[in-house]
């Protein structure tokens, strides 16, 4: 009894179950999620590419959209595609903030 109580898995049962459920739900429909993942990866790649373009100035500390608009207002022709992407995608920090947003400076 005592050993069973001590197990970490006991206290996190719910979380584990829900994860399993997700996996179970995902497993029967592999093709659309894989496609989603592929496009998301492609989008992410473009955004990171935009972050790394030195012509548009430093990217830390400001959002991607702010950086895009600064470049636009200084006549640097940032790719329109990036702006559309940023406006379409949900406001998750991995989309709206730059590549280095997790690193404190």
């Amino acid at each position, binding site marked *: 009894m005592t050993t069973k109580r001590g197990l970490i898995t006991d206290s996190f049962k719910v979380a584990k179950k829900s994860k399993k459920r997700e996996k179970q739900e995902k497993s029967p429909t592999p093709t659309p999620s894989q496609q989603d993942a592929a496009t998301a990866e492609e989008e992410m790649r473009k955004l990171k590419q935009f972050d790394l373009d030195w012509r548009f100035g*430093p990217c830390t500390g400001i959002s991607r959209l702010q950086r895009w608009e600064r470049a636009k207002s200084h006549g640097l022709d940032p790719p329109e595609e990036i702006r559309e992407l940023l406006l379409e995608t949900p406001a998750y920090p991995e989309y709206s903030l730059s590549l280095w947003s997790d690193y404190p400076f």
Partner: protein
Amino acid sequence: MFSDLSAQRDGSSLLRRPASEEQGPVFERSPPDYSLCTARYSVGERSFSRQYAHIYAARLMEMRPLLSDKAKHKWGPDVRIRKLCDLETGEQCCIVGTLFKRMDLQPSILKEISEEHNLLPQPARTKYITEADELVLEDELQRIKLEGKIDRDKCVTGSVIAIYGAEKNDGKFTVEDFCTAGLPSQTPRPALSSDKFVLLASGLGLGSSRADSMLGLQLLVDMVTGQLGDEGEQGGAATISRVLLAGNLLSQSTQDKDASTKPKYLTKKTQAGTVDAIRLLDEMLLQLVASVPVDVMPGQYDPTNYTLPQQPLHRCMFPLSSAYPTLQLVSNPYGATIDGVRFLGTSGQNVCDIRKYSSMESHLEILEETLGLRHLAPTAPDTLGCYPFYHRDPFILEECPHVYFSGNAPAFGSKLVAGSDGQEVLLVTVPDFSSTQTACLVNLRTLQCEPVSFSAFSADEDEESEMNISH
């Protein structure tokens, strides 16, 4: 100046019977056509989680096209404008970039922390330049050391310039010539039918231990409000259509460091030195705003934010005078159009800072230099506190002012500068009132400026002890 007016009349109106038993003559002060242009100096959101790289990037982005045009104008349309990364050794070309001056004496907090040898803190100096300083030009990606025909001591960090020359084998760039952005375009100023004046004063220094500046200040207030001199001078005072106080309304001595160093239980009941000084200022402003529109800019020692652009002082500090619509509390780089004449200026921090980090001595010369660089405060954010802007650099001059001033100078100075495209700019260094007892009057019609001195019974200068307005 107003004495001339009174001299023209037949005799003084003081030493004779009043003309009638009723009220004396009334001198109407006509309010100027006024619009404030300080929107670019207001800081909306205050996020300090950014690095200063943005402001330099935005500055270079904005200045690059301007300087490329200037370079083509100066060195011919087919001059090669290169980025530093495309630079080839020995090739004559032009580079646009931001200057950086590496200075050994520049105070650095990192140096003080890292050198753990119990070093004494570096003494405060008046100049931080040495012979060992090096000039470096930076663009977006790289930097290169400069030598040749460029005055190292005169240049300051942060100014964006275009240089012409070639890179030598040792990796240094030999400058043959350089150019700055020059004056921006100017909207012509309308012709005024009559003389109108704007009074500029700075460094009132209220709350200082020395009270001898108070008489001069009271004389200034009385002169502006028309309570001084005879009818001629009162009529002259009515042509002062606006008063502009350019910073340091409070004295440096109100900023005692006691409150932060002493324990709390000792300072609990003491009042901050600024409280009395602000009350005094409020009472003085009350006399002014009842008669004339007043713009109040904050300065280095005033109770507002320290970093440029300084935001306007809060209305709640002036319970008496803020009831008047004529009191206008404005930001520190200040821009306004008064009767079609564009004013732009600061309380002097930018000029004082450049003075410390360059060989230039005169405030007037520095003022002219910043106008040529098309930038109000090139040394911000390097040695001058500044808000971390990211979208644009508000200190770049977009439009050429007609009157370009800086406050808290050691002495009065003015100069009319003509630009290459017919611009006409009056440079004014507004003297510190508490030490010089001098304010200055700018004539909006002729764009001339003259000092007004209120030396009251000064012990050392007998000639100027006449209590009235002298030139």
